């Protein structure tokens, strides 16, 4: 709708459009259409649903009023805020210490630690929750550590969230702490500044934007997470589980929409703050900055090594517990080794079929998503003309970050399941899962693409045009090969997320398109804890293998196939 209006006005301006420009315009419009259909229309349908009654009549804010009059529902807001805040404080402080260890000390084994620290990203958020039940649950072998408190509730939720959000925070803070200017530290040292004062006046101000940005990202991830509270929340309900309960449990779609709107608010807020910070962060570090290199200091180095390896140990313990739980007969009564939990026989949830579906989804999203997102980013970044359209597409590409998975999934039901919708046939197919996952994780891939493209010479396209080479040739012969490392990063990011996500797709699968992550949820609900653990481990291992392949491929590319990167 908006797009067609735009195109009309644009076409008028450049009356003499060449075939190439026309193709560019069409692809831009297609990219716009993808995000309009895959994001804006569903969100709009959801907003509409939240002000309707069951029969579809407009009732104003009656649903919202009813929501705020139901204590069981309103309590979730405070619950969500409190666990999200606790998880944020835990994750950010731990991640800061570890990131400091990586960037500002000479602690041994940095590479190994970074590899271990990334592991939680490869598992669905359901995995730590399952492990925590084995560790601290009623039969758990570390139950006494909790001194009588139950793991089912806020404690478990905060622990589980902290586990899977930790790598995100670590990556953000490592990047922030890497950007240092040695000249400032040398100046401070020359002036006889004590170490603590150097930290307060140089280190902290230097990372303040990265730190604030990290706080908001972590908070958003925590407040919108569904997997952990679903498994380990017990009676402690949060907004994300409320959406699920209202829709799947009580078939109350209107109330589901209301909770979704409320869940959307903190995410949108932190999105706005993050954008605002990103804008201020520009050019904080001048091009002439000299990176700071740590010098060995045994006491400091070993202290940080100890802290980091404790964290790594916990990560290994949590993953190891899930692996162990999936390999024994029946905890805690029969500890003999078995592979039977990996057969998933006679259990609902889809078993290996679900795993295969997940694989299909992950490969499709990785392939289609990488091409679509990177090509769109290229059009936005590197083409002349259609400026409003390109800016509009860039803005649209930033939006998915602000939409929690639960909200997006529910919005898809409302939009695609409408009787009159011509896209209704998509509902219940693999295609809708691909579309949903692609849109869900669009933003990070888009930003990665834009960053990579900004590093290229701005005149490549102009040279191609002057040599009468069509733009797609320059794209495929130059831009794509040169940006290959970033493109591979994007594809593996999409693969892993498609493999592990549960929040959005939990509303969208049908009996033919069950996914492994959803199977974990159902196996756990049905009380097949070992099989749930087995499925979670399977997802983890799949992601791990793909990630390792990616690393190997990148290594080979940079060292052999892309010899041109080295001078001489």
């Amino acid at each position: 709708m908006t797009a067609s209006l735009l195109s009309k006005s644009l076409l008028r301006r450049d009356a003499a459009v060449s075939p190439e420009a026309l193709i560019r315009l069409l692809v831009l419009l297609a990219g716009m259409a993808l995000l309009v259909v895959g994001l804006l229309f569903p969100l709009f349908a959801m907003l509409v649903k939240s002000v309707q009654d069951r029969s579809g009549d407009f009732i104003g804010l009656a649903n919202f009023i009813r929501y705020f009059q139901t204590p069981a529902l309103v309590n979730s807001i405070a619950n969500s805020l409190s666990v999200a805040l606790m998880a944020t404080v835990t994750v950010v402080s731990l991640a800061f210490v570890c990131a400091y260890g990586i960037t500002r000390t000479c602690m041994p084994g940095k590479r190994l630690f970074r590899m271990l620290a990334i592991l939680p990203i490869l598992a669905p958020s359901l995995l730590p929750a399952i492990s925590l039940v084995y560790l601290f649950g009623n039969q758990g072998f570390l139950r006494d550590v909790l001194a009588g408190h139950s793991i089912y509730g806020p404690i478990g939720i905060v622990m589980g969230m902290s586990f899977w959000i930790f790598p995100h925070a670590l990556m953000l803070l490592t990047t922030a702490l890497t950007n240092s200017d040695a000249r400032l530290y040398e100046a401070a040292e020359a002036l006889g500044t004590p170490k603590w004062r150097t930290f307060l006046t140089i280190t902290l101000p230097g990372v303040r934007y990265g730190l604030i940005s990290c706080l908001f990202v972590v908070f958003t991830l925590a407040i919108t997470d569904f997997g952990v509270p679903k498994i380990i929340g017990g009676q402690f309900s949060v907004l994300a589980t409320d959406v699920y309960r209202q829709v799947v449990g009580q078939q109350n779609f209107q109330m589901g929409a209301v909770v979704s709107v409320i869940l959307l608010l903190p995410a949108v807020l932190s999105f706005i703050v993050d954008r605002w910070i990103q804008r201020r962060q520009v050019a904080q570090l001048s091009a002439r900055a000299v990176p700071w290199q740590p010098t060995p200091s045994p006491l400091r180095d070993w202290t940080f090594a100890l802290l980091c390896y404790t964290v790594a140990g916990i990560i290994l313990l949590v993953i190891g517990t899930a692996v162990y739980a999936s390999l024994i007969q029946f905890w805690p009564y029969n500890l003999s080794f078995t592979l039977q939990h990996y057969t998933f026989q006679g259990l609902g949830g889809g078993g290996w079929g679900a795993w295969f579906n997940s694989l299909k989804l992950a490969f499709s999203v990785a392939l289609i998503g990488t091409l679509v997102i990177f090509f769109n980013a290229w059009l936005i970044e590197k083409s002349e003309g259609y400026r409003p359209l390109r800016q509009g597409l860039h803005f649209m590409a930033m939006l998915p970050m602000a939409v929690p998975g639960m909200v997006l999934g529910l919005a898809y039901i409302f939009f695609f399941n409408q009787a009159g919708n011509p896209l209704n046939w998509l509902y219940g197919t693999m295609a809708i899962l691909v579309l949903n996952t692609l849109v869900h994780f669009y933003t990070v891939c888009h930003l990665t693409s834009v960053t990579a493209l900004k590093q290229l010479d701005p005149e490549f396209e102009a040279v191609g045009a002057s040599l009468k080479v069509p733009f797609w040739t320059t794209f495929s012969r130059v831009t794509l090969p040169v940006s290959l490392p970033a493109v591979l990063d994007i594809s593996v990011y999409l693969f892993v997320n498609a493999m592990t996500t549960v929040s959005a797709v939990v509303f969208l699968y049908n009996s033919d398109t069950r996914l492994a992550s959803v199977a974990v949820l159902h196996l756990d609900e049905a009380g097949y804890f070992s099989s749930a653990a087995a499925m979670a481990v399977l997802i983890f291992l799949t992601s791990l293998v793909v990630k390792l392949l990616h690393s190997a491929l990148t290594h080979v590319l940079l060292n052999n196939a892309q010899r041109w990167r080295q001078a001489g």
Partner: protein
Amino acid sequence: MQTTMTSLLAADSPTVMTPITPHLHIEAVTKKFGSFTALDIISLTINEGEFVCFLGPSGCGKTTLLRTIAGLSQQTSGKLIQRGIDVSTLPPQARDFGIVFQSYALFPNLTVFNNVAYGLRNRRADRARINYRVTELLALVNLSGSEHKYPAALSGGQQQRVALARALATEPGLLLLDEPLSALDARVRGHLRSQIKALQARLGVTTIMVTHDQEEALTMADRIVVMNHGVIEQVGTPAEIYHQPASAFVASFIGTMNFLDVTVNSADQVTLAAKPLTCQPHHNMPLGETARLAVRPEAIALTQQQQGLSGEVIDIEFLGAFQRVTLRLTGADQTLLADVPSRDSTSLSLYVGQTLGIHIPAEAARLYPVGSDHL
């Protein structure tokens, strides 16, 4: 505006002996970025085989004009006619030009051979022909043997020459050079300057080069287009630009220039420091008013005689081939630079505090109105 520009061109045209074929007509081209006018009704004709330099300070619009000619940036109004065809609205792909950018924009993942062959591949020329052409081009820019190297393995000057070969590969009718030498160090720059000029003369390809380096423009161009604030200040041969600057801006931008406050007495008479002085005849400068007299330091002769204009030496700068003497005019609070060739300086036995006679030849003294734009 357009007619004055054209008549000016006709008068200034250097190639009177050979029939002049115009290659490119720029007709009243205007480019606006929001409220900022980058090009203000630019009209210009570039002839076949000519080497033209767009010269001006940064932000004067020279690069915008080049990009407009290439179609990389669309003019707000005005026309571009190339070899009789209106190319005003054509995309870059449909125009006939080759371009070398300041950054060279060599494709880092392609070898030198593939970079140069990039535009040939598309024309579906057969392999043998491509090989032949690339070899020929690389020989032309003295890079034979580097076919299989990647750009990262080449020096700046070599990369520049690869970019040139790539731009010439498709035999464009018009070669555009966007500050092609500014990223290189001084020695390489001097060498490449003559190489590019020789190459251009040999191939006879019409060439437009954008530069902010006046020395580059003076040594390479057949004609120079001096630009400032989005308008053309002057079009002319290097000698015309240097010796007969059309405005105070051109006078101050090219080379070193003394500007002295004088009073206008008649069509070719002024008063400087209470002394009468003859200058180039001027038009419409009100008599009895102040004006600015422009003289090149090297045109000034210093003498031991002290009748007429004189001044006190307040600084002597050694610049190798000559010495630059700063003098304060006797009877006026004005300073002036004079260049004394090293072999003459001994006869003058220059020292600070000395008073010397100053001779300003009439043919080297030009008048400009007060307050006109200069650097």
